[in-house]
């Protein structure tokens, strides 16, 4: 790491106060010359930037922050309930399907007919187009996750507004 000129602070202070004490050093030290040029450009720039700026009152900022914090807390509190409801619904649907499959004779008859007539053709199609089949299964698995992530991101953006 390079070392800063040992006189930099004193040179900057002298430049601020209009002293010419360090003029000789400035003629020789490029680092101090750069620092004086940059400091001269930036000093006072803050006031110029702030001219005409109308900042909101502290009370307004405080109330907006409270309102937003509460809204986000409500959303965060609601999120686990939503996830639990989705899981419960999926489990219930699975159980209903299993019960129907196990007890319904007509369902089993249809299943046997389908596997008898279409099973061979289906297996052949999978063997020929296995990459397509893998892609389709992957899409079915990934799609709900992608939709959930998108909805979450969009609701997060909405909450920030």
């Amino acid at each position, binding site marked *: 790491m390079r070392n*800063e000129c040992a006189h930099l602070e004193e040179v900057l202070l002298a430049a601020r106060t209009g002293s010419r004490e360090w003029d000789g050093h400035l003629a020789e030290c490029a680092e101090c010359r750069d620092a004086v040029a940059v400091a001269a*450009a930036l000093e006072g720039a803050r006031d110029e930037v702030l*001219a005409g700026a109308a900042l909101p009152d502290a009370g307004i900022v405080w109330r907006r922050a409270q309102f937003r*914090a509460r809204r986000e807390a409500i959303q965060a509190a609601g999120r686990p309930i939503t996830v639990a409801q989705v899981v419960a619904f999926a489990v219930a649907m699975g159980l209903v399907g299993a019960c129907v499959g196990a007890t319904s004779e007509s369902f089993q008859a249809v299943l046997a007919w389908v596997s008898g007539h279409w099973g061979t053709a289906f297996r052949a199609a999978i063997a020929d187009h296995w990459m397509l089949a893998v892609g389709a299964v992957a899409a079915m698995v990934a799609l709900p996750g992608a939709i959930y992530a998108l909805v979450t991101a969009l609701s997060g953006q909405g909450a920030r507004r």
Partner: protein
Amino acid sequence: MLRETTYNGLTRADMAVDAVELVMDEEAFRGFYERNARSVWAYLARLTGDRQLADDLLQETFYRFLRASAVHESDTHRRNSLYLIATNVARDARRRRAVRMPYSASAEVEQHRVGEGPAVSEKSLDLTRALAELKPRERAMLWLAYAEGATHEEIAAAVGVRPSSLKSLLFRARRKMAALLGGAR
């Protein structure tokens, strides 16, 4: 969504509202805001080159500060955290726009040229153009060092670099800006 009754007719959401806590109370916040809002706004305006965007980012900065669970040892520490948040907020805004901050073909320069912005000197326009050529971190470091008079430790905390790296980073930024200002003259 179903409203889940959990206790005395209150839902989890109702209880979450009661549990919301900000890092300080309103009175303390008012004082902290009065002391720092103008400086932070100027910092954001210079980082982004957009006064209107700085208004929004100021609100976001103070909100993130209030929601952070950090414990601050002193007012200086609190102020450093605020500037670090402001730096990150400006960086996030830049990424959202997915373009370089609008300094070079700057709306700010254009506003001044057509007389819509606040009255500024030619020197200030040179400064704006020079800042446009710097990287955001370089702009941040130089602004904090020379417009705000921050110490090296404060600058390092605000821009998120190691204090040991700051001197050389600041040196390079300063040399680059001096060359740009030299070209403007």
